[in-house]
């Protein structure tokens, strides 16, 4: 079954490449980045979700991988081997350097818990970023150019294969006996220590593996983008990766994958929102925007009420749900009319693209309010589930 999964994943990557190369040339870069984010999210999930450590500085490992591989490529590559082989080598090198960083960060985790560990991981990321900003030979605050490497299809392959590898490794950890110590540390560290689990080595191992994959992704980033700067690895990036993990469901690899793709794709999709006919970016007038925001707030509040109050009663829940959406729409129209009366607001209009971060942030809040356990909670996609679905169908037919 495992071999089948992996071959299917390869087939998927191949198919993806074919489709993109034929239809959506300009999407190459986005697809590569999506693949990298999947690796980042799943590797962070290993540390946060599976081992239960609170690490919010993941971008640091991403950066170590990118800068180490980028610098070595820039300085030493002179066509010794074919670009593809070099890139794979660089990815491994980036992973190695990042693993060292992961080891260093993992050490405080032995003494610190919860929020304090979070601060330290965040601090570590910031220290690395500021140090990088001040080192001139690698570009300093401006950034570093890496010679463009490999054609887009090759980087796409590499990025997605790394993602598949990462998923495979994490999944194996999760489902086999190797993974039990990690889960044990997550559930109850004191108890597992009492049971003989080497909590120290488990925690540090989680950091090393998670950071290694992030470093590999970073190396690919450096070569795909051919330009890296410390600003690309700010705290925001760490937060976005963390959000992908939580939104997908901490501890669920499938969730991380889905959330990574979704959270990456939504802002990009919004950026390109144009009227299909005139190709002019869609404009939204000021009053409509404010009215929508207020209406959404109202709707979500009502939805949350429905969720909490009528926990088991399906009918009442759906009723209140529909009612909330209806009320929200009415509210939006009323408020829109009211706000249009204010001339300074009515004169303003916004491009849809400018709204994308606002919509992104709002989506985040709403999703957390309505489904805090994340998309997949702790569930995973598995062949067993597929079998069950199809098996059930057969049963019904018979």
């Amino acid at each position: 079954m495992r071999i089948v999964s992996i071959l299917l994943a390869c087939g998927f990557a191949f198919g993806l490449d074919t489709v993109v190369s034929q239809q959506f040339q300009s999407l190459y870069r986005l697809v590569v980045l999506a693949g990298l984010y999947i690796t980042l999210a799943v590797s962070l999930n290993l540390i946060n979700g599976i081992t239960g450590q609170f690490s919010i500085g993941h971008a640091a490992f991403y950066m170590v991988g990118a800068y180490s591989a980028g610098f070595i490529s820039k300085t030493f590559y002179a066509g010794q081997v074919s670009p593809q082989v070099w890139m794979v080598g660089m990815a491994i090198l980036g992973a190695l350097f990042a693993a060292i960083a992961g080891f260093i960060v993992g050490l405080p985790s032995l003494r610190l818990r919860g929020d304090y560990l979070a601060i330290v991981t965040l601090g570590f990321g910031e220290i690395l970023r500021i140090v990088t900003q001040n080192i001139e030979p690698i570009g300093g605050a401006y950034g570093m150019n890496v010679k463009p490497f490999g054609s887009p299809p090759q980087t796409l392959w590499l990025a997605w294969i790394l993602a598949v590898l990462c998923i495979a490794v994490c999944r194996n950890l999760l489902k086999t006996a190797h993974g039990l110590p990690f889960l044990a540390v997550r559930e109850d560290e004191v108890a597992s220590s009492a049971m003989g689990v080497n909590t120290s080595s488990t925690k540090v191992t989680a950091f090393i593996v998670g950071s290694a994959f992030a470093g590999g992704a970073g190396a690919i980033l450096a070569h795909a983008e051919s330009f890296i700067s410390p600003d690309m690895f700010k705290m925001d990036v760490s937060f976005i990766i963390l959000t992908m993990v939580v939104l997908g469901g901490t501890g669920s690899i499938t969730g991380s994958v889905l959330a990574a793709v979704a959270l990456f794709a939504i802002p990009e999709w919004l950026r390109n929102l144009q009227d299909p006919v005139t190709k002019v970016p869609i404009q939204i007038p000021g009053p409509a925007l404010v009215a929508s925001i207020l209406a959404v707030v109202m709707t979500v509040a009502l939805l949350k009420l429905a969720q909490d109050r009528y926990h088991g009663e399906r009918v009442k829940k759906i009723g209140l749900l529909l009612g909330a959406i209806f009320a929200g729409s009415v509210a939006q129209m009323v408020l829109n009319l009211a706000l249009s009366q204010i001339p300074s607001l009515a004169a303003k209009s916004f491009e849809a693209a400018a709204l994308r971060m606002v919509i992104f942030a709002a989506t985040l809040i709403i999703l957390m309010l309505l489904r805090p356990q994340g998309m997949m909670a702790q569930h995973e996609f598995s062949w067993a589930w597929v079998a069950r679905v199809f098996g059930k169908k057969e049963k019904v037919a018979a």
Partner: protein
Amino acid sequence: MLLATAALVLGLAGGCTPPSGTTGGTTASTTAGSTSGDPGTTPGTKRPDPTSDGATIGETINIGLVASQSGEQKPWGDDNIKGSQMAVDEVNKAGGINGKQIKLLVGDSQSAPEQGKSAALKLIADGIVGLLGEVASGITQQMAQVSKDAGIPIVAIGATRTDLADIGSNFFRVCYNDDFQGAVMAKFAWDYLKLKEVALMTDAKLPYSVGLSNSFRTSYEALGGKIVGEEKYQTTETQFSGYLSNLKAKNPAGVFLSGYFTQVGPIVSQMRQAGITVPVMGGDGWDSSDLITSGGEAIVGGFFCNHYNSKETRPEVQKFLADWKTKYGGEPGTTMGALGYDGAKLMIDAIKRAMDKGGTKSRDITAAIEDTENFPGVSGTITLKGFAGNPSKSALIVKVTKTGFVFEKSYTPEELK
């Protein structure tokens, strides 16, 4: 696991589709990775030519503009867009270029170099024949590289970093470069203000500021002046008392601040509070009506190098200001309004000349831009012919007063030799 890895590696090798036109390993790799302000284009160095002919001019003429619609650079980006849009609208109203209407496609660089590159790539994919932008040198560098690869001419609006012009022969600017600006201010400080010792305040996060400070230092020391110290801060900082105490101890006769007005105002204000009363000077990053608000009384009497001055009697300036007032109200917040306008007008003028000669491709437009002589811009007369992308322009030094900026002195390139 081993089996899986083997399968993956085979997949990688097998799945490699033949590389497309742009292979990895560009021959002309730039050295722009270092931020230590290279002294500039060595005369005689040939700028690499793009290999591609670029896009074809269609029924509508698509011109791309990459600017910062969000992020730290938003003030300059917004003015840039307004200026360029005003130019395009003006020409379209008068019938366009030989009857064809112009469309300005705007991409957001989000104040970040990699986003600028991404935006430029998208615009190129959308079929632009020429590219405008950007204001920040860091972002422009990425755009210049991809536009060279695609054969599209790029006219930078506010990017002053000298070595940008080395990226390709398709790169041009409407602003002067840092070498020039630094030399102008150095001469001003030495000859006009009679300052013998100057301290520098540099924004270490801005390649523009670092480059300008270095250029000032080189020229000033060449004239015989002494740089007694340099303090470096970061763009988003607000409390400068630490740096200023250090600066004061060096006893400068004057201070050169090469950063943006957003920090210069508070810095000078805190400077006076700290007891540093010596004259202050700066570059075009000071240009904004907001400088006076944030600098208050402290900044009055300061000097900076600018591209134009709103009190100038030149017809281009007055017409520009009148049109801006009608279309947007008030005055442009920064110089990028005028430079954006000039950039667009220059590009349009070049496209017209190219089309008149029978040209149909971006390559022809690039040649036309290279041929530009004595173009009457709001920011001064621009000649690009023979100057390898860096226009020969005069610099205006203005003095800050309570109500605005007044002309103090101008320098032509010849005067600096």
